[in-house]
């Protein structure tokens, strides 16, 4: 399986994603934001970081990068595109997934482990996973997912919610919501479920010695589903 990780100016989880993808069997290429064409890929990842410093609006500048034309075409033709953290913010800015990401409710950057509940397993990302609750890691300042009531209804009707914040037992009460996201939403699909944007970082959970191994479960399952 071939994957591509896009490096924007200010990306800083691009290497971590490269390490994780290679560890679980992807042949990964790093792609520069100013390139015209994506290399042949089965999966494209927009990594975390602070593209363009997040100075204008998180993800806004990066969503207009040269390479994004190619990424958008790839997504529209059904290719798998995953945006993590800043990558999710970029996806939102391209319109590939609905909604916006506001500043965290308590106006502070949060770095910690969180539990997430899978809301939809009918897709390449989460199909065949034994677990319904995974422990991932978040590190962001603008992860407060928001959309209009109408949009929310549409998202729910189309089963576009990918993951919710929850506790270790999968309860999705407000108290387990770290950033104020509407409906505890931690990740969203496009209608076709080939594009996934999520705030948590699976790539930081790929080693017993790091925060945990649920990221390993995710990546192993993903590559198997893609075969």
């Amino acid at each position: 399986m071939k994957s591509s990780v896009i490096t924007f100016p200010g990306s800083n989880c691009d290497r971590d994603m490269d390490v994780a993808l290679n560890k679980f069997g992807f042949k990964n290429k790093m792609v520069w934001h100013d390139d015209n064409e994506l290399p042949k890929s089965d999966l494209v990842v927009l990594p975390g970081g602070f593209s363009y410093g997040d100075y204008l609006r998180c993800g806004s500048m990066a969503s207009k990068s040269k390479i994004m034309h190619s990424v958008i075409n790839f997504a529209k033709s059904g290719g798998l595109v995953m945006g993590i953290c800043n990558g999710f913010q970029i996806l939102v800015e391209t319109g590939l997934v609905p909604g916006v990401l506001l500043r965290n409710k308590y106006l502070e950057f949060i770095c910690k482990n969180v539990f997430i509940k899978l809301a939809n397993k009918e897709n390449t990302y989460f199909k065949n996973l034994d677990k319904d609750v995974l422990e991932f890691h978040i590190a962001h300042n603008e992860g407060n997912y928001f959309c209009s009531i109408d949009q929310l209804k549409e998202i729910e009707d189309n089963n576009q919610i990918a993951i919710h914040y929850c506790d270790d037992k999968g309860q999705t009460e407000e108290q387990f919501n770290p950033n104020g996201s509407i409906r505890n939403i931690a990740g969203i699909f496009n209608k076709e479920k080939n594009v996934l944007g999520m705030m948590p970082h699976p790539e930081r959970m790929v080693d017993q010695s790091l925060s945990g191994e649920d990221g390993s479960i995710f990546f192993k399952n993903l590559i198997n589903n893609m075969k």
Partner: protein
Amino acid sequence: MLVNEKVAIEHGLKTDEYKKICELLKRVPNLTELGIFSAMWNEHCSYKSSRLHLKKLPTKGKKVIQGPGENAGVIDIEDGDAIVFKIESHNHPSFIEPYQGAATGVGGIMRDVFTMGARPIANLNSIHFGSTQHKKTKNLLRGVVHGIGGYGNCMGVPTIAGQTSFDRSYNGNILVNAMTLGLVKKNRIFYSKAAGLNKPVIYVGSKTGRDGIHGASMASASFDEKIEEKKPTVQVGDPFTEKLLLEACLELMAGDSIIAIQDMGAAGLTSSSIEMASKGNLGIEINLNKVPCRETKMTPYEIMLSESQERMLIVLENGKEDSAKKIFDKWNLDFSIIGKTTDSKNIELFFDNKQVANIPVNTLVENSPMYDRKWKKAKAPKKNKFKKEVYNELKVQDVLRKILSNPNICSKEWIWQQYDHTVMGDTIQKPGGDSGVVRVHGTNKAVAASVDSSAVYCWAHPLTGGKQIVAESWRNLISVGATPIAITNCLNFGSPENEDNMGEFVECVQGIGEASSYLDFPVVSGNVSFYNQTKEVGIKPTPSIGGVGLIKDYKKMMTMDFKEIDNLVLVIGKTEGHIDQSIFARTILDEKNGPPPEVNLFNEKNNGKSLLDLIEKGLVKSAHDISLGGLIVALSKMCIKGNKGIELNKPKNMINEIEYLFAEDQGRYIIEINPKNLKEVKKILTDNSIYHQELGVIIDKEMIINKKTKVTIDELKSYNTNWLTEYMSY
């Protein structure tokens, strides 16, 4: 403007210093030249009050590749790898403008590290605020934490450890010390020594603006009521540009075009160009019209003294200009050839085709003033005699609750949760442990780092305090299973012109020197911050020590959380019952006088090395050093982290229960071992003549002390974890 003595004094120079400048130049300097002298001769850049004493610190060792004098220190961690690290203060700007002050402190120290070719892999910080009751404290704390996070998070470098304290003496002068570790191949280290004639001098990075003009001079003076006027001297940080600068520099460094490189930190273009020329024994010629400026009509004076951030100066090999420029173009950064190296041994500045400054480099560096300031030796404080009846009236649980929720002991999670501590995917010990630990990417090695200070001990007896912080740093590294290698120090003091403050400095440095020499734990880099004082009142002497150690096999790293029920808990090192200057004495008994605990360097070394040996042999399940708050605080933290309890029985010896639990005697560790290894562990400790005692057994979720006091782990947690969050929620 005509230069005279009055103008010189306005620049922070003393009358005799101004006279010396005129003598050295054999003429009156023009304004630009005066500005340059004032920037190079201020305390911050010249170390004029501290140089004499810093020379006495041990700076050499088998593992030391580069000691003080470069942008940062460098140590060998084997297999061709090296760690570049340094700690630096950004105290004055952080008080004036906490967000930008702290942010640019972090940015500055990271630049010092990547200037040497190393990719930053970990950040740490030591931050100190006034009383929690003081009206400015909350805002300063919030601003500083946001600033540190804002810069470090954006750079994608994990902040893995730190230290925070509150004390009235910082009411008017907070401390913000930032430390960075970087990883580099031993044969790819870059230095700041220029070499060769007519080599192009290149300016890269952000444009120069009017921010931070005279920042270093501001940091070399005390505060008074006009402090608000100093806001324009605080630099403004742009972490995004620094991230680009980091990547661009590392890309350029992969080739062989750089002769010397130096970041523009304190005193900006002035100090960077002069340091490179001085180290290379060369002259340097700069056309200031070529310096990329952010604002219009900047004068030579402003350009030379701006402390705009995210800028570097590079001396390149001839003919490499185009290939180097391509890299900076790719990263959208300014790249300008602004001058060349010369054999004049002068710094010559041109602007609008006119020479605007011409100063012999050596007058700015070697001939800078050095003072042997007067200092007073501190008296040894008298020990207090505490009455046993006072102890008898106290309930252990009440005392424990108060101490665990004391601002200086409580969990700092509210702070470190705002720092990205896991980016780069190698953080294997997060903040909240004895040291932060990151793996050396792609290897089995890991590097541990800790930052420590004990202002109260240093204030009570500077010599002992100085030794104690080095010992504590050493213990914090050992507790995670790391072999201590070297330290960096950030020496925060009041005015050197005050004999008491100067005495604190001299004796703390002596203590640091003695301990680091005995423990073979040399000082490889550092920074001095004087004038942390408002009017006549200085801070408590607060040297911070950043220690770095190596874990050869990261799988053997140790943590402090209790692991398994029925395991045994031992204490290594003797508890004498030293209560003076402990958190207990200061907060429960309200007794602020008395000597700090003694530091026995022989025991420190022996106990530490033996514990490392036990860890290496796989005999230890968890370990934690005993520091602030004493034995029971250390045990509480191990219980909280492991979510397990302990049945603790004070060994039968003379001292009182309260003294046993809350004394802050040095050189002690708590370890957890499997009962089947007890004999072997005891044999090793006995063979090494190490005092140790069995404390008790790990049980489920309750702490039972001498059969009388019972506290659940949930209660311990609530004592310890809630205070700061509640304090910071409006």
